[in-house]
């Protein structure tokens, strides 16, 4: 079965440090997404990608960068982590239109910035 995996599953970082969250998908989907989940907000879109080499800003991109080096991999980068970026981060993959437009989610990464 197709899958989306994330690493690490848990991460503790220090303020000002660099954090990289990784995502891999075996769905062969063109699109990939990074969301963060906070109580009372549901999931909010940080960055997304149409395919290898593409990254686009979502609704809350400030403080985050993304990288899509291949069809399968999509990373989220926090160059200077802050406590406000403590959250649970979800990666997802999907296609653009039609009946294939649903997204498949990874298990999440719990990030704590001290």
């Amino acid at each position, binding site marked *: 079965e197709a899958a*989306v995996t994330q690493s690490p599953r848990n991460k503790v970082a220090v303020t000002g440090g660099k954090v990289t969250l990784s995502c891999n998908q075996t769905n062969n989907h063109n*699109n990939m*997404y990074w*969301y963060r989940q906070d109580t*009372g*907000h*549901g*999931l*909010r*879109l940080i960055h*997304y*990608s*149409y395919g290898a080499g593409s990254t*686009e800003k*979502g*609704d809350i991109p400030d403080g985050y960068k993304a990288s899509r080096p291949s069809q399968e991999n999509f990373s989220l980068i926090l160059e200077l982590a802050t406590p406000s970026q403590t959250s649970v981060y*979800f990666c*997802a993959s*999907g*296609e*653009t*239109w*039609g*009946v294939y*437009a*649903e*997204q*498949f*989610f*990874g*298990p*999440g990464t719990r990030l704590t910035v001290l």
Partner: protein
Amino acid sequence: AQSVTQPDARVTVSEGASLQLRCKYSYFGTPYLFWYVQYPRQGLQLLLKYYPGDPVVQGVNGFEAEFSKSNSSFHLRKASVHWSDWAVYFCAVRTGFASALTFGSGTKVIPCLP
């Protein structure tokens, strides 16, 4: 801009009772709508999806949802709740950007204990 509102942060229900979770959306045009479920410490799993057509859609595990354009709603229902249904439920609408999703804030379904 598109948005999704889930007015109930928590819903209490007894096992065997019926369940309805409310979702209101704001979207210019014809929306593509989704319900996802999240179990503790897990990613999101698709329950059902609505594409233009029959307003009542069937999902997994006995869930169904009804789309109403006049009410801008997409409420989720289940006739008889099972203990495995204690979880958080998210309603989402597809955006025009690589089919990313805009989520509601979620509704947590918790057991009503005697």
